[in-house]
């Protein structure tokens, strides 16, 4: 028995879905529901491919292959001069510091807001409090629906070039997501013991601390470390838009087409991501209370070290200058104004964004399904285990390299448009989904497959009759979950000219068109909300 849950269970809570387990009953539409959604997904992906011009027009730019080849050749020859290594080391520290402080702050936000938005907190009190719960939940929707990069662009206008921009850009959206997950965990663990303490006269905080917190702590820590993994990746992306660290260095190296320097930075990225991912995965697989305590202490030490390294100017958050800049940005952004081709143009770009995200998840997801079975731990022969390790390494590299870099690489050989953007996001999501799915495969219950092997089924039949059907539901749930994230991520590939709302946002930013930016951000939020709703009903139907 592991101490903590696996990731489907935890990530399901990000969108507020009931977690699986327990017998049937209210399981929704059944086969027809599954078939309907599968068909819909196929049609949607087909439409997306067609409208991206695959098979209809020239999308490959043959001239770019030599550049791409030069980039890959540099992998064997990274820049290892002492000066550049020092610079890389420094940038790595900055990125880790952003991620650590961002995670710490989002966990703090998550704890407070999680308690305040839990049903448990509002339960059994006099009338008039229930609206408080609804208002809390609704309030968390906006920060959750907006990508870290968008927050970064906004904050840099208000705070100027300050490390707090990177930290807050991570902490605001992640804090809202964490609050959602923590609220769900609290509500699930509340029940009996909490009510007993409340009935005995304990206050809400005391009752939570004694009856609920001890039971939810392992899951909360486990989720915090999953968020830390995500924060590292976000910190790199924020670096690329100017916050500093590995992302910024990577951007500079790319602009100078300095491939050897790029590879040094990429190796640093992979190393940092590997440590974060391994840490989180170890806690999920073998999270003994002692390991959790040690991890918490180490995390605390990292927070202090990160704060010292970045030296953020907290005074600036509340300074008069910040307040006036905030008022200024607000005044210049209101009212929102559509781009030159009107609201219709905004709608068509929103569709582009949806297409890109769909295509990205279709590409990344289908590759990830194959990779998951190759990469899952628990192979029986040494050769099989070596292959699995190599696959996990490949997945690590694909998700450690941020989507904007993938987009720039893809643009070497493809003509600009939504397709290269989708491909870049697809490669990146392949790394993330492959890893999530491999973990799901490792966590499959072994008994049904063993039962089939015991009645003489061949390994291939065991795979087809047990492993695949048992994992398909989780795979689909992960795919939908990443689709929701991918919609928000289209912003970061849009920034490099890959199309959709992200590209528009970048053009408006370059032109200081704040009213236009507000309209685009609102469109992005609207698209995320619609996608979340579709995804949530699909997930409910296929459970």
């Amino acid at each position, binding site marked *: 028995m592991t101490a903590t849950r696996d990731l489907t269970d935890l990530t399901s809570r990000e969108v507020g879905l009931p977690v699986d387990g327990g*017998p*049937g009953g209210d*399981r929704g539409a*059944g*086969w027809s529901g599954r078939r309907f959604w599968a068909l819909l997904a196929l049609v949607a992906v087909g439409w997306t491919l067609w409208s991206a011009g695959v098979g209809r027009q020239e999308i490959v730019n043959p001239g770019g292959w030599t550049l791409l080849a030069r980039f890959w050749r540099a992998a064997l020859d990274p820049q290892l001069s002492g000066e550049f290594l020092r610079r890389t080391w420094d940038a790595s520290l900055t990125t880790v510091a952003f991620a650590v402080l961002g995670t710490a702050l989002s966990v703090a936000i998550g704890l407070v807001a999680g308690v305040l938005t839990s049903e448990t907190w509002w339960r059994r009190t006099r009338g008039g409090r229930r609206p408080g719960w609804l208002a809390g939940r609704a309030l968390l929707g906006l920060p959750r629906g907006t990508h870290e990069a968008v927050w970064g662009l906004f904050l840099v206008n208000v705070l100027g070039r300050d490390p707090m921009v990177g930290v807050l850009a991570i902490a605001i959206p992640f804090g809202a997501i964490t609050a959602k997950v923590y609220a769900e965990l609290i509500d699930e663990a509340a029940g009996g013991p909490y009510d007993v303490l409340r009935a005995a006269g304990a206050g809400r905080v005391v009752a939570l601390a004694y009856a609920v917190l001890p039971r939810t702590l392992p899951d909360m820590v486990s989720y915090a470390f999953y968020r830390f993994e995500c924060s590292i990746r976000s910190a790199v992306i924020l670096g690329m838009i100017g916050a500093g660290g590995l992302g910024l260095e990577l951007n500079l190296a790319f602009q100078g087409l300095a491939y050897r320097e790029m590879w040094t930075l990429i190796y640093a990225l992979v190393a940092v991501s590997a440590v974060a991912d391994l840490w989180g995965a170890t806690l999920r697989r073998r999270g003994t209370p002692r390991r959790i305590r040690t991890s918490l202490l180490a995390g605390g030490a990292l927070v202090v070290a990160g704060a010292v390294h970045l030296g953020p100017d907290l005074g600036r958050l509340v300074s008069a200058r910040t307040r006036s800049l905030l008022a200024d940005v607000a005044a210049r952004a209101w009212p929102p104004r559509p781009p030159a081709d009107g609201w219709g143009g905004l709608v068509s770009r929103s569709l582009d964004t949806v297409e890109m995200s769909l295509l990205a998840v279709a590409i990344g997801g289908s590759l990830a399904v194959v990779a998951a079975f190759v990469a899952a731990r628990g192979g029986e022969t040494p050769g099989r285990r070596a292959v699995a390790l190599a696959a996990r390494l490949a997945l690590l590299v694909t998700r450690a390299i941020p989507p904007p870099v993938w987009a720039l690489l893809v643009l070497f050989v493809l003509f600009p448009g939504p397709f290269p953007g989708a491909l870049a996001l697809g490669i990146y999501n392949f790394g993330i989904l492959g890893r999530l799915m491999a973990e799901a495969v490792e966590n499959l219950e072994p*008994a*049904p497959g*063993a*039962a*089939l*092997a*015991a*009645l*003489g*089924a*061949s390994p*291939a*039949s*065991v795979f*087809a*009759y*047990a492993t695949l*059907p*048992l994992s*398909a*539901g989780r795979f689909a749930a992960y795919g939908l979950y990443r689709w929701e994230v991918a919609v928000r991520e289209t912003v970061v590939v849009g920034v490099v000219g890959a199309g959709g709302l992200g590209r528009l946002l970048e053009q408006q930013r370059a032109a200081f068109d704040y009213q236009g930016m507000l309209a685009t951000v609102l469109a992005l939020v609207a698209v995320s909300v619609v996608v979340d709703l579709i995804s949530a009903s699909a997930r409910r139907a296929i459970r």
Partner: protein
Amino acid sequence: MVLALRGVRVVYGRHPALDGFDLDVAAGERVALVGPSGAGKTTVLRLCTGGVQPSAGRVEVLGHDLGTVTPEELRAVRRRVGTVYQQLNLVGPLRVVHNVNAGRLGWWTRRRAVRSLVKPAEVDVARAALARVGIADKLHERTDRLSGGEQQRVALARVLVQEPELILADEPVSSLDPARAEEVMDLLGEVVADRGRTLLVSLHDFGLARRRCDRVVGMRAGRVVFDLPAGDVTDELGVELYRIG
């Protein structure tokens, strides 16, 4: 002999689950394994399908020494041995027809097995098996949407279509109330009687073992305490077997 275990020793970690264990089961016999939790009953059953390897001794199933068989031979033995599990071990997201057909996987080619997932093969056989256990109308439902009792029947139907010579049952009724337990034992008895099959079943319920089987083997701490015809088993033996300490 359908089953011959000689001087078998199985060790999990440092703790021996079975030590010097002997058991012979002849064709058509119905044998119950009884004894307290941790006596090694499940280990005996797992030995019979090669799920556990003994560290000493010999396990012979249907004339094959499982210590020396090739993987192909092991598969050939396994498809002649059907198992009913306490946890059922069905694949929940698959439709009932596929879970029943899974009993045929030892016989089918890989190609046939995969094709059947798209267009179910031998549907009539599966439907007849489900009719035998009383749930013919559930053929196309998703297995995890059935009630616990219905899923138990699916597991029995899977054994039926497998047509095994030896049936192993690991605590098939210990999570059921007495009335349902009798019902499942009736069905299991029918499946066994069908072709004069051999049954080796582990049971907690002493009375059930005496009524339903020809022979009762009492186990404690990995050893045989008694091995008697069901008629000769007394209540005192049972009290002694389950004594604590």
